[in-house]
């Protein structure tokens, strides 16, 4: 986010709101006009096919929020219905279907989003439909037979319409995000292209199956029942996966709890170090994956303590792990088999060397190791206690830390910035 967006003046935010509203109004008006024009030029048969699609469009209220995810591909039912409608009910019909979908989208979306979606889906329907016909697409209800015929007159035109719809989608959304949140259009479009691009290819194939079953295979509305089960199952599997991932993340909490059971004086320490480390890593501009690795490393940096005799860990008491040697390596060894933690192992192994005065100078330590080491030592000094038992003020701790290997200027600056953000968050 830009600074402008974080501290908006009231007038500026009102101006942004107005511009967005005007834009949304224009999109909605264009959508309605295009649909009306298509109705006038092309006409529309309000036959059974149309009503089935109208029903499907309303059902996306229920399905629409359910996303089918396979790998990194999100498939929403909306996209499939809107694309198949082009071939089966024509441009005008697809425009109306899009208008029906708009308000039914996203359970709790604000009115403005619903109006915007109504306009956008209508435009996608009509323009997509015109594009379909322009490259030789025929109404899918025609029972055409023959691989070549179908590919030429349904498959390829559908693919083309798919691309056209995607481009419209991309541009209209990028503009609204630019107006409302001030994000650059290029970044936004790049992000959408990456996340939704493969999904649109998926819509293309699934809509194609639906059209072929509906028309040439003469199944009509029954084709919906054939096409839905695999999508619902993929959806189900995604739900299971999401739940498992959440559970898995929580299982890491048990590791932290084990450390705290071993060393009761460290309760809360791991969580604080994780947050501080992640905040520093962000400040230093590390990649998202590295930030996540640093967070986990901060969380689990003391895991090795669990392998030491309880008496020893507790007798060195307030010193945290400072009097103990070798435990970081043991902690890393425990986690070795877990492939999703492989990025965090280096920082866990070397974090003590970053701040320990008697560590052998030699190999350059990695930035994550320095970050975690510094965050760990800072938290020990200010929250857990020094070897002689007392706590140190934040400023004194920073001064002390400047003298360590991790006391590089950039890392110290990141620490200070992270600390100021932390106090800022506490104050608000």
């Amino acid at each position, binding site marked *: 986010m830009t600074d402008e967006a974080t501290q908006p003046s009231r007038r500026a935010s009102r101006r942004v709101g107005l511009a967005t509203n005007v834009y949304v109004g224009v999109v909605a008006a264009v959508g309605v006009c295009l649909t009306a024009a298509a109705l006038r030029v092309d006409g529309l048969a309000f036959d059974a096919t149309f009503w089935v699609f109208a029903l499907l469009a309303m059902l996306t209220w229920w399905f629409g929020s359910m996303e089918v995810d396979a790998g990194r591909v999100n498939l929403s039912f909306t996209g499939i219905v809107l694309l198949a409608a082009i071939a089966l009910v024509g441009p005008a019909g697809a425009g109306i279907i899009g208008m029906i979908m708009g308000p039914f989208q996203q359970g709790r979306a604000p009115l403005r989003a619903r109006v915007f979606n109504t306009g956008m889906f209508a435009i996608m329907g009509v323009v997509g439909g015109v594009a379909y016909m322009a490259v030789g697409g025929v109404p899918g209800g025609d029972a*055409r037979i023959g691989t070549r015929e179908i590919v030429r007159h349904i498959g390829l035109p559908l693919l083309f319409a798919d691309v056209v719809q995607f481009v419209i989608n991309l541009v209209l959304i990028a503009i609204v995000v630019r107006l409302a949140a001030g994000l650059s259009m290029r970044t936004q479009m790049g992000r959408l292209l990456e996340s939704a691009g493969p999904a649109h290819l*998926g819509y293309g194939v699934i809509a194609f199956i639906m059209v072929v079953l509906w028309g040439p295979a003469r199944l009509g509305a029954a084709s919906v029942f054939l096409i839905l089960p695999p999508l619902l199952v993929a959806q189900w*599997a995604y739900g299971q996966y999401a739940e*498992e991932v959440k559970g898995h993340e*929580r299982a890491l909490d048990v590791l932290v709890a084990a450390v705290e059971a071993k060393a009761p004086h460290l309760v809360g320490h791991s969580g604080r170090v994780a947050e501080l480390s992640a905040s520093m890593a962000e400040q230093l501009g590390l990649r998202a994956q590295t930030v996540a690795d640093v967070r986990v490393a901060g969380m689990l940096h003391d895991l090795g303590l669990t392998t030491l005799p*309880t008496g020893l860990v507790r007798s060195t008491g307030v010193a945290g792990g400072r009097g103990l040697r070798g435990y970081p390596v043991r902690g890393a060894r425990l986690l070795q088999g877990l492939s999703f933690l492989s990025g965090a192992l280096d920082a866990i192994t070397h974090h003590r060397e970053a701040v320990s005065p008697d560590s052998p100078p030699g190999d350059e330590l990695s930035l994550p190791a320095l970050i975690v080491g510094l965050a760990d030592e800072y938290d020990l000094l200010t929250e857990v206690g020094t070897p002689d038992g007392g706590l140190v003020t934040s400023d004194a701790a920073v001064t002390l830390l400047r003298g360590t290997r991790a006391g590089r200027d950039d890392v110290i600056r990141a620490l200070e910035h992270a600390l100021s953000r932390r106090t800022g968050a506490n104050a608000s």
Partner: protein
Amino acid sequence: MRSLFPQAHRFRAWTVLVVGITVLAAAFYAGGETLLTQLTEHWATVAVFVVAIAVGELFRLRMPSGREAAPLASASALAFVFLGKVDGEPNLDVPVGFVVLVVAVALLIAAVVRGFQDRTVGLDQVAARLIGVGVAAVLARGTRPGGRSLWDLQHDRTVSPSLVALGLVAVAGIGIGVELVLSSSVRSERQRTPWLAALRDEFGEVAPLTLAVVVSGPMVALMAPALGLLSLPVALFPLALTYVAVGRYARNRVTYRQTIATLSHLTEHGGYTPTGHAERVADLSLRIGRVLGIADRDLRDVEYAALLHDLGQISLIEPIPDGATVLAAPSDQRDIADEGARIIRHAEGLERVADYVEAQTTPYRQVRELGEEVPVASRIIKVANAFDDLTGGSDDPASVRAANERIHLGLGYQYDPEVVEALAVATSDTAVGRVGEREPAAR
């Protein structure tokens, strides 16, 4: 190539295998004469489907329980069963036997390739699949109520295509159902699980996937008259999405288990418990659980609780000798279990696991006499833990016998007799209670 043929005493596996071979022989007998002419006529269609089935077989999905499914192969095989008119190719008007032979060839090619890759083959499973396909083929092509088969109706323009589609889906469902019943029967025999429990798990775990498979086969056949052979890859696309999604879910389960296993290593690295103890107890608990017919869904928590049953030792000041809680004082055992449960409760979603760990020390007497509710999972872990503490992980017959006798002494007082009986079954044969024909270390 391991375990190509089932062991001699496995009656059901052999029955399925023999029936499978009979189906093949019958197919050959019925279709053998015209085999060559059919092959020359339909070579392109046959080649495409053989490749699809064989490749689908090689890319099996390993479900969280360790059960394997080959959705792409099943759907392709069913599609071939139903296939009639194919645009650009001659009408696939062939006898049932020909269909079965083609599918059999594809399955056998895949089996041979798997064999060369040193993966498990399990001819009894291949036979179960072939029988399922055979049943579907007989129903779709060979059964003619009113003089016409379902296959004939596909080409009758006076019959509603929706009705035909419904019929095809129903037949596909029956074919897959037969396969699942047979394979669960074979599995329950190997694992010594009650058949009903195996059947419930088989249907329960693969049900969503099966639903997708059951519609994909007919989808191919219905599109083929218009779209030709292209309908196979196109119709398999949604199923492939499903395949990817389910596969990712299953893989995540594997890493989840690894994380839990890491927790169990904490006490081992600290010298509190002997190396491998938690894994052995988990393995044995799972096998006992299967013998008792516990549902797959619940077995996950049994396994996690067994892996973590000694976690509470981590904060002990002085380690127990050899970590053998069975020899520790009852009050110490309880403290350890409580501490373990307390640590586990820090993670949301593992409450049940914590409950199991907590209740593992309760003697069975309290269930019987005081009516105390102790989850069966806890009773299993109690027995499995005692067994491993007593044998020290050795599978030497003498120590296994000694441990079994020692546990028998606590029967009814310490241990649940039903669980002890299941332990005796599980320790009598290493194949009991194992999913897949793999070594335990490979899990």
